[in-house]
């Protein structure tokens, strides 16, 4: 396989990795039509033929669905003419196909000018990266990751339903929805507090809560610089003040054992870890709150268990407080 540039090579590798085969690169492929009297094919030269460089990815066998990708390695943002050209190519391929359905994507790591979207939406062609109403610059790595996400999702999507993607702008919007959320991801990863492990993905309080609510506490540990709560369903939560890791990673509980500092009741009297475990273990998580320097979870609507960097606290939430001191 020969490649015209580094971007083309990398796109090919991404496509092969995502789709596991059925990916080819064609250079100077000639597309020919019978009549050039349509505005969409204005970029076709007379005689009405067009030479293109294309990354072809077969997504489905029956019905045959093929993705045509144009990789634009440009020093500036891609212009409407670049998208218009690809719209014409995809439209032509569909018009003269023998049952094969073609979708098109234009990939330009330097981005697109605003006029590109009108062509892409009206001709149902996807653009990567997305246009989001302000000039956003995505790194090439991010753009290739977007491309991979689109390929993986598209392969799964066409196996479920493909007809509804045919009518403009359904395919354009499908691609847009998959790549639009990349904005802010890099910043979120840098400032992240919640991380899903073992993947290491930046996450949110909401996802952390969904992962732990309803699970029962199976163990509480203190390791150097963090506290760990082992939960049912092989889920663990590790709190270290600046970050909260959660998920099904058994490595999360690893670390040198440390001397726990535990407290009980609203006035934070000292107590032992065994005391907290005797009450907390076996109870289910019913609520959660993040107070910055500690995370607190509700247990069976009766207790609040706090995870600090150096230990735990436990408070009864039942009233009157004096009668429910631990």
């Amino acid at each position: 396989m020969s490649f015209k540039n580094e971007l083309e090579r990398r796109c090919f590798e991404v496509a092969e990795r995502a789709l596991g085969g059925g990916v080819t690169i064609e250079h100077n492929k000639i597309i020919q039509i019978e009549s050039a009297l349509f505005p969409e094919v204005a970029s076709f030269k007379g005689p009405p033929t067009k030479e293109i460089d294309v990354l072809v990815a077969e997504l489905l066998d029956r019905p045959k669905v093929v993705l045509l990708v144009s990789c634009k390695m440009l020093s500036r943002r891609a212009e409407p003419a670049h998208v218009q050209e690809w719209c014409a190519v995809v439209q032509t391929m569909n018009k003269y196909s023998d049952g094969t359905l073609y979708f098109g994507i234009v990939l330009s790591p330097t981005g697109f000018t605003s006029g590109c979207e009108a062509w892409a939406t009206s001709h149902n062609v996807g653009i990567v990266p997305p246009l989001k109403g302000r000039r956003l610059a995505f790194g090439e790595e991010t753009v290739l990751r977007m491309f991979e996400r689109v390929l993986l999702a598209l392969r799964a999507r066409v196996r479920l339903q493909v007809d509804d993607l045919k009518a403009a702008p359904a395919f354009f919007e499908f691609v847009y929805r998959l790549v639009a959320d990349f904005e802010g991801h890099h910043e979120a990863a840098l400032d992240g507090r919640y991380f899903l492990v073992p993947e290491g993905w930046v996450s949110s309080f909401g996802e952390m809560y969904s992962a732990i609510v309803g699970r029962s506490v199976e163990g509480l540990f203190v390791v150097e610089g963090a506290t760990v709560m082992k939960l049912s369903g092989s889920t663990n939560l590790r709190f270290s003040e600046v970050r909260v890791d959660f998920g099904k990673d058994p490595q999360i509980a690893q670390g040198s054992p440390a001397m726990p500092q535990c407290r009980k009741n609203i006035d934070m009297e000292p107590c032992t870890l065994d005391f907290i475990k005797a009450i907390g273990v076996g109870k289910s998580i019913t609520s959660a709150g993040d107070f910055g320097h500690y995370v607190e979870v509700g247990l069976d609507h009766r207790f609040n268990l706090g995870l600090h960097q150096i230990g735990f606290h436990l408070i009864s939430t039942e009233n009157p407080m004096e009668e429910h001191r631990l």
Partner: protein
Amino acid sequence: MAIPAEQIILVYSDGQSVDIDTLVEELRGEPKRILADDEVGLVLYVGDLGIYNLKPTDGGEFLAQPVTEISRPRFSTRVLRKQIGATVLSVTADAVFVIRDGGTLKKVRAEKLEPGMVLASGEKVYR
């Protein structure tokens, strides 16, 4: 448009409202529906479940739009409150609106949306 989950009004074809959290948790168990589950978020195919998104109109009625995918970004985005026409929405700062700018249309992010702007749909931005 990146509207947070709590602002999306989803209903089944019989008008019964959809609990998105419950639905997402149920559908997670059907791997073929998972279009993406990665560092960016979760995307699920729901095109065959007869789910519609109810979009409020100026007339106080709802426009039902079929939903094919439900997307759950994994990280949180800044949320703004905007009043567009008669509707007050919570939208993420990066949500894109198309506004009229003289005789042309222009894309504007929610964070740049200002009172007095008129959307392509004819709805006015109040705050």
